[in-house]
């Protein structure tokens, strides 16, 4: 009687531990599979031409900075990197300022008609970017605004402001109302309450939303492709050019080196704010 009682849970636990080990093993295997392309990109960026085109593909080789030196001393790649930094941070900052204000308005301020605007802006997520790229190109061309950083910054507002606004709105809704109510009873104006009380305590949320916005702008291709030609060309456009260059064959060295430099800063930033990223995603899917 007692023996049955002790062996049965043990057996069950062992069977559970097998399936548990399979789950953990599977999870690790799949994660590695998902990371492999990035790993391979970084690896290839350190290969010489001879080591890139081999069968079987080489895992061990003499690492070289040659590709990086070649492409990052050439004028166009550093320039494009700088353009991307300017445009992405510019668009990110403009959108976070404007979108935080309207997100707060939607969350806390009673405004007749504001909710309608909110819904309209949410609906804009269904607008195909190409429907904006064509008219933007024509207008910018007629106004002499093509190939300028400011044009791209404004173009990126089309998707960044709605994104920031709705993310910040759900953030502000989760704050206790007493915060600004008590501040306003103490004689703070609405602006005062917002800038002195709400903004400081929301800083982590604002900063991580800013980082996501910069990432989104950093990766954007279509508007950059259409609105720039020489001076304001961004890195995604350069990469599309390298990847689509079929005349000189596959330039994997350039692709992987430029790709690595594009991706690594973003990965670092994303990992820094990962807790917020996951939280924001989960909220976006369940509450949005």
């Amino acid at each position, binding site marked *: 009687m007692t023996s049955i009682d002790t062996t049965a849970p043990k057996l069950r636990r062992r069977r559970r531990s097998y399936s548990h080990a399979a789950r*953990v093993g599977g*999870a690790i295997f*799949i*994660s590695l599979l*998902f*990371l492999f*392309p*990035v790993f*391979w*990109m970084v690896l290839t960026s350190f290969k010489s031409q001879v080591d890139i*085109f081999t*069968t079987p*593909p080489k895992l061990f080789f003499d690492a070289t900075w040659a590709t990086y030196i070649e492409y990052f001393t050439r004028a166009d790649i550093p320039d494009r990197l700088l353009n991307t930094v300017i445009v992405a941070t510019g668009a990110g900052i403009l959108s976070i*300022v*404007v*979108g935080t*204000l*309207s997100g707060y308005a939607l969350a806390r*301020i009673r*405004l007749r008609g504001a909710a309608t*605007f909110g819904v309209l802006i949410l609906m*804009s997520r269904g*607008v195909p970017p*190409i*429907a*904006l*790229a*064509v*008219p*933007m*190109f024509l207008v910018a061309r*007629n106004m002499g605004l093509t190939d300028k950083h400011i044009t791209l910054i404004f173009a990126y*507002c*089309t998707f960044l*402001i709605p994104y920031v606004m709705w993310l910040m709105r759900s953030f502000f809704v989760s704050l206790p109302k007493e915060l600004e109510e008590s501040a306003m009873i103490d004689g703070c*104006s609405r*602006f005062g309450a917002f800038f002195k009380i709400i903004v400081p305590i929301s800083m982590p949320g604002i900063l991580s939303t800013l980082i996501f916005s910069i990432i989104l702008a950093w990766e954007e*291709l279509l508007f950059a492709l259409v609105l720039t030609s020489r001076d304001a060309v961004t*890195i995604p456009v350069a*990469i*599309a050019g*390298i*990847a*689509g260059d079929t005349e000189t064959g*596959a330039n*994997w060295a350039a*692709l*992987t080196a430029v*790709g690595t430099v594009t*991706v690594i800063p*973003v*990965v670092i930033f*994303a*990992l820094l704010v990962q807790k917020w*990223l*996951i*939280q924001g*995603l989960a909220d976006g*899917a*369940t509450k949005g």
Partner: protein
Amino acid sequence: MSSPNSESPRRARIQWGDLAVRWSFMLPTIVLLVLVLAYPIWYTIEISFSSFDMMTFGAGEFIGWENYSWVLKDYRFWESLWVTLVYLMWALPIQIILGFGIAYMINAQWRGRGVLRALFIIPMVVAPVVAGGIWRMLLDPIWGVVNWALGLVGLGPYDWFGDPNLAMATIVIIDTWRWTPFIVLIATAALLALPRDVFEAAKIDGAGRWATLWSVALPLLAPVIAATFVIRWLGAVKMFDIVLASTLGGPGKATSVINLFIYEEAFRSLNFAESSAMAMIVLVLTMLLTGVFLIGSRKLETMH
């Protein structure tokens, strides 16, 4: 004596002032979005009903529905819509099923869980154009590491970019690689939020694994799955970068999704009026379908 006279205009002024303050939170967003969002859409509508004037490089004379009827008669437009539909019908279900499956595995109780979850962020933030480029390298028929690995187990070699069906598979694979992690991250949170006691009750009632999944877990997850689907749908209809960097729409037009097709019509063939009409058709279609999906997901939410 003077108080009623001086008080009432002051109160009115204060209220006006307060209204201005209230609206000033909303106003910058409205002004900017009217400028960069509403006006371009309006201009697209205008061009779509006009002939395109190459001299002024803008909308010419009004020609009614002519561009639309031209587009609707263009078999390439329909072909491209079909390509987009095929891509969506493969990519979205695969990504959602895979995403929730992986999330289930990752959620196993062990020390490295948080690390794995963080690592899944990495593919998500690889710029789509870089993703397309790297996969083009990985899937290269001759030098690619994927064909080499498949060759080890006796498969292939596959011509990932030359065969129309395989090229579509290629697009779906790249898109799935980049977007499944996004679903994994949502799904891990959703799975952790599931109420434990319901599953214990199902176990006590003797429900098997599949029965538990089918009649306990899925109904509970339905709202999250629906929401994930809508978000993913809104991203997937914008598919452009990955295709441009990997298959370039080829071979032939096999992977020319609608955004790439309109882009090429506008900026390579300079058919701005026709491509505006196409963009408007796609806009209306997207809005309608998004509306249907949103209503559907609301229904799911109220059902459970």
